[in-house]
């Protein structure tokens, strides 16, 4: 993904704030959100900066209200976003279903935290299913992007707005508490002028045909036809697969991980290589559409996979589906906000390699 012309020197920024600044550079016109740790800095940054760039900031009374404000503004033709953390995404499921059903563009940021329930404010990746398997009730899908550095978080946020417009669909940035809170150097492109309201937006008119933003189709034939079109859109969305292959050329074991887990895994892969172990990292950047082809291709050359997630194992199911039983797929996960260390993952890589090459 090209970040465009980088015109500034690098700035040391917190992940949450970098995401907000990136959205402003992308020409976001409205932000509606609700405080929740560990992402409240996104709201706070928007409160400070968005009005100055001509946009609308409003703290909503709940995540339910926030996602519906996003719906209204998106339907009215504005470039709009919201952000929250796991419990807030649960509250937004209804709104997301309406957004995909009504085919509205928007960006939704989930800075994942420990769950289920109230959980804690530490990092987690346990919302993968929720993000990728459906957008709320029904057969709708979010386009899901997962950054693993602050720079990537900024780049993907800008990309998210463009993809949301391209497909008339919500795009979710799936981050975690670590990425949201940590600080790294980041560069931003020049700010863009907000794009004009699309022709389908409800901007008020006295002329026929009037515009309607809607997701109800009472006749089964009509609703089926609508869903067929949505599924066709998700097939076209496969063009947006993004994945990184790191030291995979001669790898015997592929470590599959995304987001913060991939940061740790990359270090572990480097340590493994120092030990003479042929490990590589396969890092999905788009989680939906999932890089099935890249995983399937890797399954033809490696002896096994080790999927690492901050969860009980969610992406590992998609890895297994793509591998189609060709080679073993092992899993290592930490939960509750615990994050593995590089030595911890190195141990698992060694163990897995021994297992899959034995006999």
């Amino acid at each position, binding site marked *: 993904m090209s970040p465009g012309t980088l015109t500034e020197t690098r700035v040391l920024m917190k992940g949450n704030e970098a995401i907000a600044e990136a959205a402003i550079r992308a020409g976001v016109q409205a932000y509606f959100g609700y405080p929740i740790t560990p992402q409240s800095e996104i709201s706070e940054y928007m409160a400070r900066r968005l009005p100055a760039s001509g946009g609308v900031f409003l703290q909503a009374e709940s995540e339910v209200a926030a996602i519906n404000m996003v719906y209204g503004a998106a339907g*009215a033709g504005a470039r709009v976003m919201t952000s929250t953390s796991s419990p807030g995404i649960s509250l937004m499921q209804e709104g997301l279903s309406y957004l995909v059903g009504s085919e509205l563009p928007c960006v939704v940021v989930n800075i994942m935290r420990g769950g289920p329930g109230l959980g804690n404010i530490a990092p987690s990746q346990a919302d993968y299913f929720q993000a990728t398997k459906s957008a709320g009730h029904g057969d709708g899908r979010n386009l899901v992007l997962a950054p693993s550095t602050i720079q990537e978080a900024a780049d993907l946020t800008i990309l998210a707005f463009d993809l949301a417009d391209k497909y008339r669909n919500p795009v979710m940035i799936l981050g975690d508490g670590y990425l949201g809170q940590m600080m790294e150097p980041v560069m931003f492109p020049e700010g863009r002028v907000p794009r004009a309201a699309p022709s389908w937006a409800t901007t008020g008119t006295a002329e026929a045909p009037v515009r309607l933003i809607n997701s109800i189709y009472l006749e089964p034939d009509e609703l089926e036809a609508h869903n067929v079109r949505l599924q066709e859109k998700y097939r076209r969305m496969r063009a947006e697969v993004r994945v990184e292959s790191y030291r995979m050329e001669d790898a015997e074991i592929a470590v599959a991980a995304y987001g913060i887990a991939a940061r740790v895994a990359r270090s572990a892969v480097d340590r493994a290589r120092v030990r003479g172990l042929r490990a590589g990292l396969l890092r999905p950047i788009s989680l939906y559409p999932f890089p099935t082809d890249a995983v399937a291709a890797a399954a033809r050359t490696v002896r096994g996979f080790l999927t690492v997630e901050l969860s009980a194992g969610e992406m590992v199911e998609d890895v297994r589906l793509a591998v189609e039983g060709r080679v073993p797929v092992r899993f290592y996960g930490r939960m509750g906000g615990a994050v593995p260390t590089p030595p911890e993952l190195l141990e698992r890589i060694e163990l897995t390699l021994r297992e899959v090459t034995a006999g």
Partner: protein
Amino acid sequence: MKQITTRPRALAETPFTYCPGCTHGIAHRLVAEAIDELGIQGRTVGVASVGCSVFAYNFFNLDFQQAAHGRAPAVATGIKRVLPDRVVFTYQGDGDLAAIGTAEIVHAANRGENITVIFINNAVYGMTGGQMAPTTLVGMRTTTTPFGRDPRLAGHPIRVAELLSSLRGVAYLARVALCGVAQITRAKKAIRRAFQVQLEGQGFSLVEVLSTCPVTWGMQPVEAVRWLEQHMIPAYPLGELVTPEKKATTHPETIVVHPVTIVHPETIVVHPVTIVHPETGGVPPGTGERG
């Protein structure tokens, strides 16, 4: 023969699909007439809610958005905040607005969102077959209060207009009824006034429209109108509860707030807040000055 009335331009030619005797048709027409008279058809966006009026957009020649159940005020907020020069209104039933949508309506009103809410109160959930609504009267039989609403189990009906009237962001609040020519004429005036208040940028406006639901009430249409007059109007008094003029005299609070100075993490110095109460002319009884 002289034609003295026409279909409002803002009302579509589509025949209504509401039940015979349903007052939605009248309410739709009054809204369309107000929009025509104010000349705002070209800059109005409606937000449909979930209930019998879920397909309201089929009956208006206006841009519309369909909102989830209860969420119309939040959707309208999103539209109005990004298109502040358009007229934005919601059209909601009692379950939509006062049950699942309570948070959204209270906060839109409290923020003084410059939108207009048409609130259809027929004391029942019509679309889903006649269940209890927040506005169902005590003793009223519905499919989920088959023995009559018992306040010990289900609470009392909510007077939405009174509830919202305490919020300062509300600029215009009226309750009207669609029973008979005189009341319908008053209803039309209130609806037009509500849109006018939005055009003047005064704040949040809402008209609560007492309506009938002959089918779930189990009555003939004319009988239902009589029932509304005899039972609903006493429970939900008619009138203009808040107007921009009344607000100026009923909410003259002078709140003097001095900024909070955080001197040291453990020591927070708060200067006293003095609220001059309009009626007592001084400090409200029982509160005193807070230091």
